[in-house]
């Protein structure tokens, strides 16, 4: 890679020790690295084609990137920005989740209706599990026993036993489920439905629906209020939910399941990541090509940071 020495030089020149947010730019084939102290883009790193899902290994020694159109999960050295190798990911990987064992990636293969399990050490496919059409949202329970794939066209959350790597339950949700998260020590599973406009909350022990949250944005037709990515504040007390083309993030009380606030951000807000103490939230806004920085306590947008075209995923990296 031609630009690698240059990046290395820039790195040496940059002040060390700042926390960062890494953002994948789906239509630029790059990652924008935002310095959390200065709220500026300090690095732009080339990736494979159409980077979407992004996650760091638990020790932050490598970063995994779903390069969807390269049909690969790329493993990158976050210090040099160099691609170390590709993992065999199955076709069109969109999102993934790293198991608590720090060794197995559960990958949604959007075009193949498959969830692929990859061992990142041996770099081999351990299992492929048939799921619904267009798998996307991926989650794994804190104890590592359950993995979830949501399928956009089949409209289901598929429950995978990570021991046997078999499905043990399939639960319907509203149209186009996009994102899933285990919360409250893994007792609850939240699944967002983009077209349905809801988040369904499951009791994990019984895999039954416990509650459903609907969203409204004043003066906005409900069709355009489309929940996608979401993340939880400290102690899982509140969820911040990206509402897609309504250009708002909703703040949901995770106890009462009520929407408490709406925060105006950039256009077509998609995914998000917190800083270390979760006082700042960074949302990716696909259409406006920027990242909005939200003050979590005051529930206000602080700043927009221009990144690449169609920012999609976001991940936190602590100072090294």
């Amino acid at each position, binding site marked *: 890679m031609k630009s690698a020495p240059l990046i290395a030089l820039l790195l040496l020149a940059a002040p060390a020790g700042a926390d960062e947010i890494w953002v994948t730019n789906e239509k630029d084939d790059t990652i924008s690295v935002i310095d959390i102290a200065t709220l500026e883009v300090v690095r732009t790193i080339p990736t494979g084609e159409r980077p979407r899902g992004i996650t760091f290994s638990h020790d932050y020694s490598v970063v995994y990137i779903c390069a969807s159109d390269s049909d690969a999960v790329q493993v990158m050295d976050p210090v040099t920005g160099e691609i170390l190798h590709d993992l065999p990911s199955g076709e069109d990987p969109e999102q993934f989740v790293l198991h608590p064992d720090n060794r197995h990636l559960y990958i949604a293969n*959007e*075009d193949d*209706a498959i969830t692929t399990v990859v061992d990142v050490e041996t770099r081999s496919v351990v299992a492929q599990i*048939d799921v*619904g*059409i*267009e798998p996307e949202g991926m989650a794994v329970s804190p104890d590592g026993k359950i993995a979830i794939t949501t399928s*956009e*066209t*089949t*409209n*289901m959350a*598929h429950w995978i036993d990570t021991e046997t790597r*078999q*499905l*043990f*339950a*399939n639960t*319907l949700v*509203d*149209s*186009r489920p996009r994102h899933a998260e285990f919360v409250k020590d893994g007792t609850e599973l939240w699944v967002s439905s*983009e*077209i*349905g*406009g809801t988040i369904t909350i499951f009791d994990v022990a019984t895999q039954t629906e416990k509650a459903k949250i609907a969203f409204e944005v004043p003066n906005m*037709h409900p*069709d*355009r209020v489309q929940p996608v990515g979401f993340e939880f504040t400290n102690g899982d007390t509140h969820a911040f939910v990206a509402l897609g*083309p309504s250009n708002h993030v909703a703040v949901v009380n995770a106890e009462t399941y009520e929407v408490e606030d709406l925060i105006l951000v950039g256009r077509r807000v998609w995914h998000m990541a917190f800083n270390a103490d979760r006082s700042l939230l960074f949302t990716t806004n696909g259409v406006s090509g920027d990242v909005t920085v939200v003050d979590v306590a005051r529930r206000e947008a602080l700043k927009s940071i221009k990144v690449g075209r169609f920012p999609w995923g976001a991940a936190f990296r602590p100072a090294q």
Partner: protein
Amino acid sequence: MTRIRTTIAALLGAALALAAPAMAQEVRVQYLKQAVPQPPVLSNLDPIPENLGLQGAILGLEDNRTTGRFLGQDWILMTETVPEDGDFLVAMRTALAQTDLLILDAPAATLLAAADLPEAAQALILNAGSPETALRGAECRANVLHTLPSRAMLADALMQFLVTRRWDRLALIEGEGPGDADQAAALRASATKFGLRIRMEKTWSFDADMRRNASQEVPLFTQDLGEYDMLLVADEANDFARYIPFNTWLPRPVAGAEGLRPVTWDRVMEQWGAAQLQSRFLELAGRPMLDRDYAAWAAIRAIGEAVTRTKATDAPSLRAYMLGPDFELAGFKGRPMTFRNWNGQMRQPIPLVDRGALVAQAPLEGFLHPRSELDTLGLDQPESGCEAFE
């Protein structure tokens, strides 16, 4: 031509029978198409695929089957194309003996005759082939829902765009092929609805005066259209419309059958997850997905969604659910799609495309409606004249 009959049975493979209940539910859907003679056209560039529509139904079936295998449902799609000289009503009767869930791609008169068969009274028919606005109006039938947009919906989408751009002086060229007069009528009605003016109209008749290439005739033909912002062309088969852009006397954009086209679906759709649907279709059919493929796909997916949510398989229950407030279909056009419960038309965004990109998608911003912005497209309840749904 021989009668083509195929049956695609969605049998559960042993490997796929994941925790499926022992009592599998069987859902049978019939896709029935009337082959119609295609008018001769000047260009060979865009042949109409023989399996137009059918491939969309097959893809929709596969989508339903995937969901069904997690819920213990077997999906069976029966498909038949009635040849040009065949008897559609005989095929319809045979199909009705097998199932009361049908997807039809047939001209309006044939569709109505089929829907009016006594055996079809309790059936659920989805129209995925006829854009006649009257089928959503005075000629509506309680047992027919429509996944293909009406000509009025398409024309309204285009007019919303012209209003937004303030291109309000229009000229119209109307062809003489089948459907051209209806398309022109829809454009006129829609222009009136949105307060635009068609200042000049001409009919394109490929008669003896046409001595050179069509493209060479166009400057002369359009010389007397006067002053206008946009030239509308009504030519459903795209016989001559493709030769109009860049050949007009005045340098003006073209819309309708060529240039900026309001469509149900097009290969340029890639937002809202559409890229996935496109690649699934391309893999299946070996060609891009077209309007009627999409309508057939949406029809079988709508049935699938209703079966999944209600666990019912009978036509009356499914119809009631599809027309009810809880139904919604994710159709890769950015908004949930529902059915108008007063005439059975599927509400859906209408993309405005040219050959290279999506230009805009109606409803455009600012066109408001008390119920749904999607109801700014096509017949609205007070004007529909449909009484069969009361």
